[in-house]
């Protein structure tokens, strides 16, 4: 029979053994670099059709996905797409989890403080999806007490609301769909978002919403790159120039954005790609 002290000794051996095991695992995982240099890891949030979305088989598809494929081909690297929530893209880039961001991201000065951007590849603007019975008929009526405005967290709409809206009540959502639902159910008066998505959201909710597509702020989208990575930056700018010259953007626009293009032309709102 074991005396208590033997049992204790055995127990402490086990404890030390398992702690050493834990230490090894943590040490290895802390030191190993998970990144394989030859693969181009592109981060995007696959919840923004027709730019970033998934098809029925759950494969990434859309304008940005095809851009990423063309970019990887241009660089001669394998492509891996990581689906990351929009607000988490910059942190992922800064911690080296991804190499570039192609996620319909606007190049803003605030973002430039933490990451670099390529040349712009698309111009668009922030506009409003307004609920049908709301008193708001133009952008000037936005910032009033008693008005509630929905924005999606981390987007330029959120930044705009945080800096320019003083009197209205700002509601924050992490999902575009929730923000649209708020407007269509008249829980919020307006949703500040980009023109193309606003148009699509209005299309889907024509009975309950109106789209005020005139831009309240112009902005341009670019590819995000980690700071001080000049080589990759110039390669990407090269790619954008050749891709644009060879009509890559035109054919993508034709494939994914035909409806929006026509509608925007009819409304006389410029549409650059």
């Amino acid at each position, binding site marked *: 029979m074991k005396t*208590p002290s033997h049992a*204790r*000794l055995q127990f*402490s051996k086990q404890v030390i053994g398992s702690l050493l095991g834990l230490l090894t695992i*943590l*040490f290895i995982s*802390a*030191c190993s670099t998970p990144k394989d240099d030859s693969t181009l890891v592109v981060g995007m949030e696959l919840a923004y059709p027709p730019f970033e979305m998934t098809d029925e088989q759950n494969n990434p598809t859309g304008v940005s996905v095809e851009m990423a494929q063309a970019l990887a081909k241009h660089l001669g690297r394998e492509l891996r797409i990581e689906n990351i929530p929009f*607000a*988490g893209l*910059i*942190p992922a880039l*800064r*911690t*080296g989890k991804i190499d570039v961001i192609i996620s319909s991201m606007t190049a803003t000065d*605030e*973002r430039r*403080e*933490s990451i670099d951007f390529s040349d712009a590849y698309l111009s668009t603007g922030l506009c409003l999806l307004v609920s049908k019975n709301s008193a708001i008929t133009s952008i000037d009526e936005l910032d009033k007490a008693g008005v509630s405005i*929905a924005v999606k*967290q*981390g987007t330029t709409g*959120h*930044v705009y609301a*945080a800096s320019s809206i003083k009197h209205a009540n700002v*509601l*924050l*959502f*992490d*999902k575009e769909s*929730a923000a649209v*639902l*708020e407007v269509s*159910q008249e*829980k919020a008066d307006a949703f500040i978002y980009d023109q193309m998505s606003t148009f699509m959201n209005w299309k889907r909710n024509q009975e309950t919403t109106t789209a005020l597509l005139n831009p309240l702020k112009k902005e341009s989208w670019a590819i995000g790159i980690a700071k001080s990575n000049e080589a990759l930056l110039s390669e990407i700018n090269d790619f954008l120039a050749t891709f644009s010259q060879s009509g890559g953007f035109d054919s993508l626009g034709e494939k994914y954005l035909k409806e929006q293009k026509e509608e925007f032309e009819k409304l006389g709102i410029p549409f650059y790609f």
Partner: protein
Amino acid sequence: MSFFFEDSPSSPSSPKQAKHFVSFGCAFLFLSFFVFLAFTAIDYNWNWSSVFQYKKKFIDGWLISVGISFVTLFFSLIVGFLAAMGKRSTLLPIKYVASIYIELVRGTPLLVQIYLFYYVIADAAGVDNRYVMGVVIMSLFSGAYIAEIFRAGIESVGKSQLLSAKAIGLSSKQTYRFVIIPQALRNSLPALAGQFANLIKDSSLLSTIAIREFTLNAQEVNSITYSSFESYFPLAIGYLAITLPVMQLSRVIENKIRFET
């Protein structure tokens, strides 16, 4: 070596306080070391000052979270009590309403309940205030768990006591009032305190319907300042500041009950 082991009644006792203090310190340092390793490995540029600027957002959010949790606790106790009674009811429709409610709520994610309740049921009912709906949703959610806690508490009262109650001529109502409920309540208290701690943490999901509680505000500070992790530290500390005392309270109550019975 025996310094690192808890005193058993037979072993000679060494200074007890110091012992626990040193072991706690060792454990704390040991865990901190790994956290430190992990943080140095990610090569991240920390920027605390921009987060500190927004301290008011953290405080406001924390107060809302705590406020919602307390109001919810009150209502979920009522809901839980009714559901537990309903489930014990001999009237079958009531019994099944209570069981279906409890199983549905316990069997589905809170996130799904929040979305469905807020955008479908509340919309149909014409309730627009998101804070009111937040409390209603959380009360219904937490109430189902509390119902099970109460049920366990009621069932912990021995059969012999019920028979004795019958023998001395107590009615069913009197049996509940004087025999079952006082004991059931006492037996449920530790689990209730634990449930309250869960409630505070679970209320973070109300951020999805734009309730300006602690988590949403912290996330907002993250996105405004383009920082990634800084906000999560005040967030963790803020939740611990309320859950640790609640869990400690639960332990104290547990010990007290053990001595009484």
